[in-house]
């Protein structure tokens, strides 16, 4: 287990390096630069700016400079907000984004697995069709449609919940979390239903029932663990999706997370900001996938003992 962990950590290093390399090259290939504006900047000013940020150096020199600073934990200055470094921006925004993703993930897990299990217990009956139809709708509705819908119903017509901000008014975290988590809840529901149906047809479930165990005990003690394997393997990429998907939701609900900065940075060609955010998210995504893989290993005693 430890060996697999170390192995995976080591293999993350070249992945991160490639992410840095490709992003670095791609954003420089995109037309325009960080100092282009609607109003043309005088050539002299532009030259000074380029000099100030070493943008006049050959690209490989720029790249190695950047990597050198990166290894010291320095993401560099933001080109668009000269008063703040990229690290500062990230520090300010990341707690909000992480919190939003976490709540959304919990929404997905709780609603997804519960409805999947409920549906699997009576397949092809109303108990199955209702949650699964809801899940189908959940998968089809993107968050930029679901968000405004929820705002319209719960925020404006029913006036139950606030529709913007984060941690300002009580209950303002509910709608964003649901908006972000709903799609994943739907996926998880379908996966856990499938996993449960397969597990429930296994011989060892028959054994458990032949032992005279109650239905609940059979489900929770015997079936659920086997059924969760596909759920866990999806959960890693799902967290990654939640992190990057949070941008849309942050924009809808005006939440001061990282998402807005990421989007703005892309429009502004704020090279260092884009790079910093990309590296951060790549890192988080690798971690999430690693955790999911380790959890899968731990869930399966056959793989756990293997050295």
């Amino acid at each position: 287990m430890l060996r697999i962990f170390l192995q995976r950590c080591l293999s993350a290093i070249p992945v991160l390096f490639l992410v840095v390399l490709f992003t670095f090259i791609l954003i420089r290939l995109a037309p325009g630069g960080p100092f282009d504006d609607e109003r043309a900047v005088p050539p002299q000013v532009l030259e000074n700016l380029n000099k100030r940020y070493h943008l006049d150096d050959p690209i490989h020199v720029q790249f190695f400079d950047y990597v050198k600073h990166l290894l010291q934990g320095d993401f560099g200055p933001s080109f668009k907000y000269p008063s703040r470094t990229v690290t500062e921006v990230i520090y300010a925004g990341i707690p909000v984004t992480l919190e939003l993703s976490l709540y959304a993930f919990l929404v997905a897990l709780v609603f997804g697995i519960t409805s999947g299990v409920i549906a699997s217990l009576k397949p092809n009956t109303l108990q199955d069709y209702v949650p699964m139809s809801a899940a189908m709708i959940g998968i089809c509705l993107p968050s930029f449609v679901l968000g405004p819908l929820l705002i319209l119903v719960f925020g404006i017509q029913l006036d139950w919940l606030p529709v913007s901000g984060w941690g300002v008014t009580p209950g303002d975290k509910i709608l964003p979390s649901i908006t972000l988590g709903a799609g994943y809840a739907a996926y998880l529901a379908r996966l856990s239903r499938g996993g449960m149906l397969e597990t429930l047809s296994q011989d060892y479930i028959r054994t458990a029932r032949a032992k005279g165990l109650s239905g609940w005990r059979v489900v929770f003690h015997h079936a659920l663990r086997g059924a969760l394997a596909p759920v866990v393997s999806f959960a890693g990429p799902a967290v990654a999706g939640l992190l990057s998907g949070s941008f849309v939701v942050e924009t809808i609900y005006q939440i001061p997370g990282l998402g807005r900065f990421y989007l703005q940075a892309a429009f502004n060609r704020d090279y260092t900001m884009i790079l910093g955010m990309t590296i951060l998210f790549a890192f988080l995504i690798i971690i999430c996938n690693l955790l999911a893989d380790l959890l899968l290993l731990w869930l399966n005693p056959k793989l756990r003992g293997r050295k």
Partner: protein
Amino acid sequence: MALLCVENLTTRFHTRDGIITAVDNVSFAIEPGKVLGIVGESGSGKSVACYSIMGLIPSPPGRVEQGSAEFMGQDLLTLSPGQLRRIRGQKIGMIFQDPMTSLNPFVTIGDQLMESLRVHKGMSKKDARKRAIAALEEVGIREPERRFNSYPHEFSGGMRQRVMIAMALINEPDLLIADEPTTALDVTVQAQILDLIKRLQSEHNLSVIFISHDLGVVAHMADHVVVMQKGKVVETGSADQVFFSPQHPYTQKLVESLPTTAKPYSPQFQKDDKPFLRIKNLRTEFSRQHGFLFWKKWFHVRAVDDVTLTLRKGEILGLVGESGSGKSTLGRSIMRLVEPRSGEVLLDGVNLTELEPKRLRQARRDFQMIFQDPYASLNPRMTVFDALAEPLLIHRIVPPSQILSAVNQLMDDVGLDRRMVRKYPHEFSGGQRQRVAIARALAVRPQLIIADEPVSALDVTIQAQILELLLQLTQKYQLTMLFISHDLSVVRYVADRVAVMQQGKIVEEGEAEAIFSNPQHPYTRALLNAVHHLKKTDAA
């Protein structure tokens, strides 16, 4: 008074394709402390009948439609789910066919054993643990304290079945239902498990319902026998009556189908002594890699270890051994489906191990394989005609204009109706599918056939027909055959000579009758002793 009395039990499955009556008006009874055997071929409803009583049939689509099952003064079929749960695992224990899949792979065997005690008896964890360890000891698990926290995959098949038995009996039930408990096990392990069940049965004065397709095993175990066919009980009686003076034609057919004798006729053509297939010092290894980067280590498992064998033209050599003995790997190594590591395979003087890929493809025409599971080895999307015509065309055995007549000839050879040639494999029964597989192997007019457990997946009456067919065809086409099987009686029935394989090595080889009447190697003796034939003394 009977412990369990089942009357007029009818179970139907309501599927989309219609209603299937799996159990049709079945009645039987079992006395306290006795063993009731239920025999029948696959699909005869013997398992479904028992699952119906226990409320374990998948529902929907299954439904118990009529009947009663009186057990200790209660009708099991009218009990509420809660009442039935108190009987399951407490008054009636069950063990199943496949110990590999019947234990929960995610839960330690200790927890699985304690669960019944804690649920039914409300025992404390400490007491349950003590009782569970004692139960493991009773079924012959060594070091039960240490094994208590092991997971099922850390046990062998036989050990797992022991754990299953311990689990079924841990609450000291009055009745044990054993559904094909030894079918998935090797013969020597099977003998041990049967002895264990017998011992526990007499020690605890247990009643046992023993479900099996294997007449020999049932005769060995049961006092009373019920024979089922197509959901109906066709004959009941004492084991002696049923097996030695069967009344119903179906029971007679079952008993007659058992290959109990030696080869019914020997080849009539001239056998020349010149070896046709010579295997010299053949060795096949599987390597597995452990670790990564600088800590890499290779482990070699010798599946076939220095095997030397000779087959004469027209001879059938039976290759016997238990699972994992390397007999299938040997068959595959001869065909170079697995690359052997060293040694020679000479087919009619040509060394197959040295052939380059193109020559090997041409040479493969001369040797064909028949597999255990005909359904898995036939392409489900090809009609039988396509499956048979393909090798004929690839190897240019007949010109395209004569394909139809060649295929028809093959269908005749294996005893299939010519009109079935446009059907797909799933439209055939198991026995018919094996006939198709045989026809496919014969299509290229091979000289050598390697048959890997060709009848193991078939019911005994079908098995007898397929064996007969194989014997006829080897005669007709002067085929040489390597017949691989774990079933000694089957090998005895078809083989001229027999080789016994254990852990990759041939431990004994000789004329079939000599091996069966006077085995020399201890392993061969152990194998032969483990087989249960229909013997009067057994059933008494």
